[in-house]
């Protein structure tokens, strides 16, 4: 099954190697990994997606916690959450055939962020299937994709959730920490054109 781990790690040299090495040792391929600064000074937040057996989740999380530079680990495969990915797609386009790509971008709620005489760049945010959808449509049309750059998945739990671990460590958290969202919002941005 697909596991999604969200971890807070110290922003130090070599930390990513330690995290990646743990998966390497288990011969598990990391299918997606994003890292960036978090709301907590000195800590980076990473979202890591991998395919592993259902039982492996507990052990991977426990092993991640054993790394000295890992502060928090959340396995949110099953939890209500929002996942997004960012893609930059460069397409060969002349002034003559630009307009159909503009229309496509409109439908996918994408933006054109660069325009050159022979190409243009599309910025698209959304779930994986939405990005795959645009790429497929571009491939099927006459438009030639020159480059694709994808960020990998970023995931955040829905609602006012702060993990059990963070609370145990004294991080600020509300009483409603584990409450589910009262309203089950549709993943609005994920509405895809058929």
């Amino acid at each position, binding site marked *: 099954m697909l596991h999604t781990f969200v971890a807070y790690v110290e922003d130090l040299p070599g930390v990513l190697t*330690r995290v990646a*090495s743990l998966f390497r040792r288990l011969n598990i391929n990391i299918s997606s990994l994003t890292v960036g600064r978090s709301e907590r000074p000195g800590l980076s937040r990473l979202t890591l997606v991998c395919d592993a057996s259902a039982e492996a989740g*507990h052990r991977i*999380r426990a092993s991640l916690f*054993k*790394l*000295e530079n890992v502060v*928090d680990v959340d396995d949110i495969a099953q939890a209500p959450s929002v996942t997004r990915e960012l893609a930059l797609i460069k397409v060969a386009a002349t002034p003559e055939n630009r307009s159909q790509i503009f229309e496509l971008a409109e439908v996918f709620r994408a933006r054109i962020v660069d325009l050159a005489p022979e190409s243009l760049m599309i910025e698209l945010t959304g779930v994986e299937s939405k990005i795959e959808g645009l790429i497929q449509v571009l491939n099927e049309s006459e438009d030639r994709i020159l480059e694709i750059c994808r960020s990998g998945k970023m995931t955040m739990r829905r609602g006012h959730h702060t993990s*059990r671990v963070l609370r145990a460590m004294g991080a600020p958290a509300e009483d409603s920490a584990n409450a589910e969202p009262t309203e089950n919002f549709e993943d609005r941005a994920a509405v895809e054109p058929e």
Partner: protein
Amino acid sequence: MGSNAIPQSSNAHLTTPTRLTGAEIIWATLVGEGVTDVFGYPGGAILPAYDALRKFPIHHTLVRHEQGAAHMADGYARASGKVGVAVATSGPGATNLITGIATAMLDSIPMVCITGNVSSKVLGTDAFQEIDITGITLPVTKHNFLVSKTEDIAPALRHAFQIAQSGRPGPVLVDITKDAQQGTAIFDFAAAKPRPYRPHPMLGTDESSLAGAAELIRNAKRPIILAGHGVIESGAMEQIRTLAERAQIPVALTLLGLGGFPASHPLNLGMMGMHGEAWVNHAIQEADLLIACGMRFDDRVTGTTSQYALKAKKIHIEVDPSEINKNIKVDVALVGDLRSVLEDLLPRIPGRDGSAWIKTIEASKGAVAVRDIKNLPDSGHLYAAHVMHDLWRITGGDAIVATDVGQHQMWEAQYFHHEKPRSLITSGGLGTMGFALPAAIGAKTACPDKEVWVIAGDGGIQMTASELSTIVQEGLKINIAIINNGYLGMVRQWQEFFYERNYQSTPLVSPDFVKLADAHGIKGRAVRTRAEVADAVNEARSHSGPFLLNFMVEKEDAVYPMIPAGSALHEMIRRPGKNPLVESPDDK
């Protein structure tokens, strides 16, 4: 060491912030952490540190190969419970440590390794003797540090000591560049204190798990305690004993658990697993409850996991959450330090009558007198088991024994009965040949008043035999017993059982070990018959210096019983009838 130290200043800088060189900070921090002995080998990138050593009350043992330094630090830690420290230079010095670090990692031994590295300006340029040792050791250390600033040395070292000793212990490496050693910084020992220890967030021994465990124990008809290395690491010997005695539960031990529960205790079943006695493994297969304490269901203990103790519920008390349900699914997990978990559990455990189950196991053992090889007639052959047995009898079981890996290791575990923790020093997880001799040097350094024996095979001893010189240079009274059968014995045994006696590359030509000892200035003696064993052991013990005994044992003897790798615990290869070392009437 005393005359070299600067008495008035050796401790002043621990309380008053002082400007020191990085090299001085290394030793000052070690002194502050309570280190009195280190094992190492100098070289270019660690020379500034060695230059400063004379100012500090730390004894340095010069090894002959850095692998020896790591094993000595490991043996020191296993014998004393303190953190062992090894020091090496960059490049080959650092890479030579790796087998020793991995050995400590697999057996959860607290150890700090300090390596020098090239100057920070040339890091990553393939400078002379530069190697990425933090990269190389990443999978075999609990954590490691690359320090390139003088002011970071003390915090990194103090953090390393915290990591090495906390939770599930393990080795930590601190790599310090030469310019960091040469620079100066204000040394403030107190300020270099690491952040408060963060227990693993997935520890958990809640009320319901404790109650669940207690209920399983109360209701069990055929319970067994499986005691592992965690008993010793956590210092839970009394608690295990109380649990066993109060609830009348027999105790089986892992190899690294030997000594954690007295061998002579009536509830002690002995070692379990691949070379455990038949009654132990049968009892585990028949049990209805296993209480696993500080052990990790290693494959050498379980045999094939699909057939392991299928009738038993399992309680797992373990400090490392990643071990829970790793090899064997358990019914109740109590994740925490073994001693404190047992202290929480014990008040819930009432007295219990376990006599019926104990009688059943006792009956399967057969007569003890038959098993005592002292009672067996001398057939003219010298078996390793005789040597172990006599060593145990003559030393009163009170010595620290360091063993290598292989047949002699298993015979030692079977026939040398350990009453006390930290009396057996052996590489269990990694199974490192060449471990015994250097580990014994570490143990003797930690416990100079204890009798220390090396037991090694003719194969393993040659892997680190250069450390014989270290024994002499350090003036250590260590006795060495070589179990010499002319083969890489355990590999030969596997070839005999599983590879149609194709003894490929296992017959072994060795030097005359007595002459080798003599060349080192160590007294030695060869022993060829059983009748000589006691006298030889006594001679070695009464000699004031180190002594080597070369026991020329039966060449093609095998360790019985044996569970072939991948078989179930009850599918043992039993002792053949002709073997005079029949342990039980059951062993036909």
